[in-house]
């Protein structure tokens, strides 16, 4: 991995010192969605908008958005970074989420 000029700007001070500082940014370990073997998928009609999946997601890849059947908030998962751990599925009290194999064809939700 080579450092681009924009990267350098972040860590080099005015005197050109190389500072061991890294700003908070998504993807510090790359596109971690590629680590997945299974993905969580939502059945929007079952979701009660309880936020538990959002609260527990270790990768903070869930955002709650008003895209449910009643305009209610449902989890929208960022598959670019979701590692497929399955915690959201486990904590959902109404089984609105389930894990499917990455082999299975993707059903676009929205």
């Amino acid at each position, binding site marked *: 991995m080579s450092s681009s000029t924009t990267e350098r700007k972040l860590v080099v001070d005015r005197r050109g010192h190389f500072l061991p500082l*890294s700003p908070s940014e998504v993807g510090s370990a790359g596109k971690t969605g590629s680590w997945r073997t299974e993905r969580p998928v939502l059945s929007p009609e079952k979701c009660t908008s309880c936020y538990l999946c959002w609260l527990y997601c270790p*990768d903070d890849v869930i955002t709650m958005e008003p895209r449910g059947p009643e305009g209610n908030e449902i989890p929208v998962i960022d598959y670019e970074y979701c590692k497929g751990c399955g915690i959201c599925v486990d904590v959902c009290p109404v089984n609105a989420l389930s894990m499917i194999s990455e082999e299975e064809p993707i059903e676009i939700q929205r």
Partner: protein
Amino acid sequence: MIEMALNIKSLPKKKYVMPGHAACPGCPETIGFRHLGMALGDKAVTVIPAGCSAVIQGLWPKQGWGLPALNIVFAAGAATASGLARALERRGVDAHVVVWAGDGGTADIGLQSLSGAAERGENIIYVCVDNEAYMNTGIQRSSLTPHGAWTTTTHRGNPGTKKPIPQIVAAHRVPYVATASIGYPWDFIAKLRKAAKIRGFKYIHLHAPCPVGWRFDAGLTGKIAKLAVETGAWILYEYENGKLKLNPPSNRLLDPSKRKPIEEYIKLQGRFRNISPESLEVLKRDIDRNWEEIRTALRAQGDL
């Protein structure tokens, strides 16, 4: 005091953990760190000794925590935070300086520095993220590994038992000591917020089941954390100015018959797969003793 009912939806939506960080799938430390950010918000500055939470940040020039993270040598979490907190206070900067350390960084190599900061009454919040082994170096036993657990240095099961760190810290007569679990975010968040309002040294011991080190399915992190509490293997309580109080749901579990059998907790974990019946008895005795000590303390306070 009546527990603050925490409305999940009112929690900050800001990302305190950056998607695409380097933690294993299902990592408890990242779950806990999110709750830390939600509880304390942007006034928090973290000091992080060596451990998984250092590596989780990922690779320069990015970092995976959504809070300032000062990495520091393994043994120096509390000392570094002490200096930082004093400097920020001197400069009039309103901040919550938080040590975010593993069980090894707390109970073993960092204990002296922790004790020093506690005794001096430094104005910091110390969170021990207890995944019950040295995970970052590949699952070696620490003094917070439970009895009978397999690690890469206890192939025949851990001969020791968990060091009572919350009691050791409480014995320093600090204003606030609490236990928490990543399975009970609202409890942890409420405790952090309470700690943030108290001046002096605050200690929160966060139970953090690790799928990699404990050998369970990554999706079960939350469930196992809850089972630890429901079976009584992990107890939620707090010491405010030395006064002990059990927190829900542990406050309902003083009577052993209300607890789920410990087997429900350990059967899901590969690290206990080969535990001998004798070791299991020791583990149970150990848990009973923790409860007994709590009962004694509550009684001594006149709360039982």
